[in-house]
């Protein structure tokens, strides 16, 4: 129920966001509405005719694929936010590399140099996080926050210096913060492509090792795997994806490419291999679509559009995912609730007849004919809403478990009686177990058993029978407390 409440409230929140966004649109944005592309432009982008667009879209797609793959392992290793810290930590590296190159060559805009600086500092940042975690009592969240903000602060301070230098032309450096996909040149795309292909290959080659480290690092270590080195290698791949992604989506949003696609893939499957591929596909799709959209509409920053595309995929997965999606969970919960209602009705009816006719077979049918309860009596046996009650009654009738005995009185069919006996038996076995083994007072066990009886399976029942040797396998145990049905009778 709690889950449903959250869902409802989350819905309201999302609704509010939409409303406020809508108001913003009509209030301010309408004046500079986006320029929608013409059909010809759309065609040009879709068919990748434009050289520059082709470079950008393919680069973004490959980046998304690589990030989706390695992000899967990052997510399973529960280190999603570590990527946030290490991407923020790249900023001082970029600024320092720039200043160093200006001092040496007089020009600081060499992409490889900047990326090398970024990589060095992201490794330093990761190292600092580990250091703080291992050698102080601060928890991982504080370590991440400290490293992220202090390194970023250092980066901002160094950027301030870099922009005040007379030579070197630092104007484009800030594109590393927000990303500037549109300005990618062929060389950038080539670099991204090469790095992405390397990452993809390593992810596939080390699939088994990474899986082992992610799911049970202690076990992997005991089996003789070099867990520390594998872990380091995995983080190195994350660093590679992060630094090549800086230029495309910017250092704040590059984490989204590592986190969102695998999180979305999680809703569709419970198998790692399919999750890996799905996550890669989601990443690639976000990259392609996002870069495409931003190529069509000049005023949209590509990094943000790529991330929002990924978020859209996430929302779709969250809702419709076949393994853990909300729709599926909701349906399952509903199915269980209906089953519980039906079983409760069967039990109440059985106990009704039990207190009046006994349990012995001969004479039961005649007794049932005489004592069959009507709707009002059945309804009053339990605190259920009339609607739930009517629905359960209808379903049981159509399943052939209950039959109408007269115009407004109900009894069991033979199959219904057997089914009801099974349900009541489960209930009473569990009650007896609670009384004898969990020391719960007989007056309180009914509710405890009420919750659990619907999920007891055959194995568990067999175990219960073994534990409760007093109960003979076939017989119906006595109810340890007074029955609601008999109280009504008095």
């Amino acid at each position, binding site marked *: 129920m709690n889950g449903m409440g959250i869902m409802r409230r989350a819905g309201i929140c999302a609704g509010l966001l939409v409303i406020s966004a809508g*108001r913003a649109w009509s209030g301010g944005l309408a004046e500079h509405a986006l320029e929608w592309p013409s059909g010809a432009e759309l065609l040009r982008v879709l068919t990748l005719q434009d050289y520059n667009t082709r470079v950008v879209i393919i680069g973004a797609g490959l980046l998304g694929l690589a990030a989706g793959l390695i992000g899967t392992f990052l997510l399973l290793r529960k280190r999603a936010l570590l990527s*946030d810290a290490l991407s923020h930590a790249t900023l001082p590296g970029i600024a320092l590399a720039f200043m160093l190159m200006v001092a040496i060559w007089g020009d600081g805009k060499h992409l490889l140099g900047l990326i090398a600086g970024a990589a060095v500092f992201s490794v330093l940042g990761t190292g600092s996080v580990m250091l703080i975690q291992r050698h*102080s009592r601060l928890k991982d969240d504080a370590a991440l926050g*400290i490293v992220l*903000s202090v390194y970023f602060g250092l980066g901002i301070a160094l950027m*301030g*210096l870099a922009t005040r230098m007379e030579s070197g032309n630092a104007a484009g450096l800030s594109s590393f913060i927000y990303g500037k996909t549109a300005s990618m040149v062929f060389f950038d795309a080539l670099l991204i492509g090469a790095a992405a292909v390397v990452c993809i290959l390593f992810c596939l080659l080390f699939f088994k090792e990474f899986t082992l480290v992610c799911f049970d690092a202690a076990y992997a270590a005991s089996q003789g795997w070099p867990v520390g080195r594998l872990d380091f290698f995995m983080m190195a791949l994350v660093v590679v994806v992060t630094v090549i992604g800086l230029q495309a989506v910017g250092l704040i949003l590059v*984490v989204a490419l590592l986190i969102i696609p695998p999180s979305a893939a999680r809703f569709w499957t419970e198998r790692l291999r399919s999750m890996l591929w799905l996550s890669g596909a989601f990443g690639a799709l976000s990259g392609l679509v996002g870069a495409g959209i931003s190529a069509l509409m000049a005023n949209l920053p590509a990094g943000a559009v790529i991330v929002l595309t990924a*978020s859209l995929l996430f929302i779709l997965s969250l809702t419709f995912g076949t393994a853990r999606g909300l729709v599926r969970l909701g349906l399952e919960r509903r199915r269980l609730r209906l089953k519980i209602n039906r079983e409760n009705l069967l039990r109440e009816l059985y106990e009704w007849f039990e207190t009046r006719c006994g349990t012995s077979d001969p004479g039961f049918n005649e007794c049932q004919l005489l004592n069959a309860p009507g709707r009002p009596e059945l309804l009053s046996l339990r605190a259920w809403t009339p609607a739930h009650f009517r629905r359960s009654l209808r379903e049981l009738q159509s399943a052939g478990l209950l039959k109408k005995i007269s115009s407004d009185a109900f009894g069991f069919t033979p199959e219904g009686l057997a089914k009801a006996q099974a349900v009541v038996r489960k209930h009473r076995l569990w009650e007896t177990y609670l009384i004898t083994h969990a020391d719960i007072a007989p007056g309180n066990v009914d509710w405890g058993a009420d919750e659990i009886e619907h999920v007891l399976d055959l194995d568990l029942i067999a175990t219960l029978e073994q534990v409760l040797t007093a109960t003979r396998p076939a017989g119906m145990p006595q109810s340890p407390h007074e029955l609601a049905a008999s109280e009504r009778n008095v």
Partner: protein
Amino acid sequence: MDWTVLDSWIVVTGMLSAMSCALLGNYLVLRRMSMMGDAISHAVLPGLAIAFLISGSRDSLTMMVGAVLIGVMTAFLVEAIQKLSGLDRGASMGVIFTTLFALGLILIRQAADHVDLDPGCVLYGAIELTPLDVYEWGGLEIPRAAVTNAAMLLVNLAFVLAFYKELKITSFDPALATTIGINASGMHYVLMTLVAATTIAAFESVGSILVIAMLIVPGAAAHLLTDRLARMLALSLVIAGLSAVFGHIGAITVPGWFGLRDTSTAGMMAVAAGAIFVCVFFFAPHHGVTGRAFNRILLSMRITRDDILAFLYRFQELAPEGSPPVSASDVENAVKAGSAARLVMWDLVRRKYVDRSAEGLSLTEEGRGLARSLVRSHRLWETYLCNKMGFCAEDVHYSAHRLEHVTDKALQDQLVEEAGYPFQDPHRKTIP
């Protein structure tokens, strides 16, 4: 360095915003939710943008309301996604805040040409410009940002003082809080609301990412310095204030060494906070790296001392009357502590527990008393472990060997009682 009244105002504004952040940050650190501060401060961007677009002005109140709404929504959505989908907290945070940040970036870009809102300014603030935007108040010109941040600091202070007990219990033991009737999730959301509001107030001065430095670093450093909550709060305020002061001084002096004019004060504030943290990390008395290493060395010294005393006692117990004292090198080999043993021996002689003569070492009367007590603890433990816990194997000696160092008089007496007033240990040695 030219220090003007502008510089003073920059420092005051920086201190006020840093302190109001740090106060709440303590609770984020204690609740292990530091990254929630990160998520909220990134996610308020669309709130700011939307409020901007609706009101068309930089009126603080509208921005505050818009951003606080989005901030609380972020906290809520993170929680909801975590519960609904079973993703871990970090991942659900990552999904939410990057999405909202991307949304905010797009909205800001759309609005950039007609409103004065620059993403760079949002990210790392413009504290250098705050003294230019002033309130006239009683003939005094006070920067607007300083007033906003002072108000926020007062609100946070009032909140922390009013709900000191509730915050403490919910931070350390939410389950206990719920059982004694404190609404733990209510406290959580109030805290998140205030974090969002503080983030906005501090935006103009330190920007959205450096706000995280002020939220987390002072609290984390203070957490390493003390074990008491009230002291931690006070220390974090001091550290926050110092970061602002040193940050601004650093921003206008350090670049001078390289022939440049100055750099971002907000960035340097984060760096200063980081530098303070590094100092605390290494040199904090109990929880610092060197402090802990020092304690470990002291402990191992004490253990070596105990070992030497006990060894000398046992030697004298076994040696016939009048035999020569044991040589220093034999003692060194016996306690297996390397050169540390020599240092400890020197210390023992200095304290007059041990006599050093030409032939070797012997216990003084004082040292003998101390050593007797140690051996007594050792043999009592052996007896107790063997008789009462059925733990009589060879290695009972080693267990007793570890325990003897932490056994005081009261524990000895209790052991005597528990072991039934024994005279001999399992190895048939007399208990002194």
